């Protein structure tokens, strides 16, 4: 699906990503982990093509990402960034319909097919009840679902999520990750998501990539990546890693200091 070859990227204030090699195949579900500032968001932006690597190359299928127009990229890649502020009182339907933007011709406006896809996507994400509600009056979790629906209305092959569960309550977190997982299995949607919550990442992603100071330090299954030593090294946190009681993935246990003996 997407290959990142020897890519480096620096903002004006310093290097953010160094020599990143990453190949994600069609149908993979990949979680990006790492401390704040380790380069997760920058990697998502590189993969989306809105920023270009200073060195190295990114290929979407067989074509260099920089050779493809924004509109064609939007036909294959959809992105859910961390936060969206929409200054005008659009309804849920109007926001989700924006996902059809890359397909709508300026002169003819949206087709009945576009309207149908919008309605189906809202039903899929569980937003039908909120169709005519104003986006700016929704809760944080509902807004995140609207933005996800907008991205899915693009009918992408690759979905990039930048901390999709940030600031959400547990039920919305589960809902969004379950949906991503379901689309990944049923439609072979390739998903790459930056994640903070290591346990959620272990539960919902098949492959995890651990970033530290702009470099990939681990790439593999959750059990391969999430070890006690590596978490201490990368996050400077001492935790215990056990097996999740019902699924075969690691589970991170945090014990507050001073409570070790009871």
């Amino acid at each position, binding site marked *: 699906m997407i290959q990142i070859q020897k890519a480096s990227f620096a903002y004006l204030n310093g290097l953010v990503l160094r020599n990143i090699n990453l190949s994600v195949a069609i149908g993979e579900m990949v979680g990006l982990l790492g401390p704040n500032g380790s380069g997760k968001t920058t990697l998502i932006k590189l993969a989306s093509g*809105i920023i270009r690597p200073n060195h190295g190359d990114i290929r979407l299928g067989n074509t260099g990402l920089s050779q493809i127009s924004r509109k*064609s990229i939007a*036909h294959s890649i959809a992105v859910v960034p961390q936060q969206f502020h*929409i200054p005008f009182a659009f309804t849920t*339907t109007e926001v989700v319909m*924006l996902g059809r*933007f*890359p397909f709508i011709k300026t002169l003819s406006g949206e087709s*009945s097919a576009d309207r149908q896809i919008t309605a189906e996507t809202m039903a899929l994400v569980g937003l039908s009840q909120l*169709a005519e509600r104003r986006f700016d009056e929704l809760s944080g979790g509902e807004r995140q679902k609207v933005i996800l629906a907008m991205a899915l209305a693009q009918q992408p092959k690759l979905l990039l999520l930048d901390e999709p569960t940030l600031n959400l309550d547990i039920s919305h977190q589960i809902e969004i990750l379950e949906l991503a997982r379901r689309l990944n299995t049923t439609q072979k949607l390739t998903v790459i998501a930056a994640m903070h919550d290591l346990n959620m990442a272990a539960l919902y992603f098949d492959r995890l990539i651990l970033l530290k100071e702009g470099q990939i330090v681990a790439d593999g299954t959750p059990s391969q990546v999430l070890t006690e030593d590596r978490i201490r090294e990368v996050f400077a946190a001492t935790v215990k890693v056990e097996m999740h009681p019902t699924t075969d993935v690691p589970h991170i246990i945090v014990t507050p200091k001073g409570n070790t003996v009871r």
Partner: protein
Amino acid sequence: MPTKSKNSKRLLGISLTLGGGLILSVFLATALGAVNVSLPDIFRMSLNKIALFDFPATWRTVDETIIFQIRLPRVVGGALVGAALATAGVLFQGLLRNPLADPYIIGTSAGAALGATIAMILPLNLALLGFGLIPLTAFIGALTSVILVYNLARVGGRTPVISMLLTGFVVSALFVAIIAFMMSIGDRLGLNLRSVFSFLMGHISVTNWNQLAVVAPLVIGGIIAARFFAFHLNAFSLGEEGAAYLGIEVERDKILILSLGSLLTATAVSISGLVGFVGLVMPHAVRLSLGPDHRLLIPASALAGAIFLVITDLLARTILAPGEIPVGIITALIGAPFFLYLLRRSRREYAF
């Protein structure tokens, strides 16, 4: 979900209401003034003009001259100024992602006015392009100031109200000072310029059809072009990053939209000077009743802006008749309190 036929029915209703309102207000504004001519007479004159009928003249010849050669160009000029400023307001609000943007408030009008003043003061003015040079230099001035404000006022992809207002205010103050200075020089040199007062306060200075031959195509063409960017502006409400994810070539479209807003502002300013708040009040009113979709907002705001300025200019001509006051005074008396109300209401939202 609204179906297509429902939408097009709604569109038809809105167009009829606003279009009818505009025609009505144009007739009304043409009828009223220092010399009153009755509405039926104006109807008959108009029908005679387009050679459909041949009503016997129940009016004086001088009335016909007043109506068609003096008042109608002025009223049409006002409508064009209102439509242009309202559309420019929508474009700037959409791109700055700030519903309080207005060509007057963010300094675009002052930039255009400076450009226009330079054209008026240059001796080659009349020889070269006639009136046509004024919109051109006004456009350059408007674009310069809008790019200045756009780049100075943005903080992390957003345009906070406070920085937009401060930047707009200071840019305006600077340009207005230069205009006043240049006009003072013009007076000293004995150039017969417009009065600084009426130019800076906003006054529809259309005295013949020739000016409108330049202005009307620019305004109407500009509004049609703006309508092509309507769906893009919806996408821009997600911010530049979000718009790029949806397939927009952000840098290219941004400069096109800013240029279009500058062109409309410049064209309006070249015949009216600084008329404020039209681009703020009208789009807001339309958004409240029709929602924020730019595909509807642009044409509806243009029509509403035209009506608004025809009526306010009528007031400007008649309140102190036979004297006149600049129409910008009326729009400011209505628009400024409205702006303050919106500012207060948006305080929480924009956190300043």
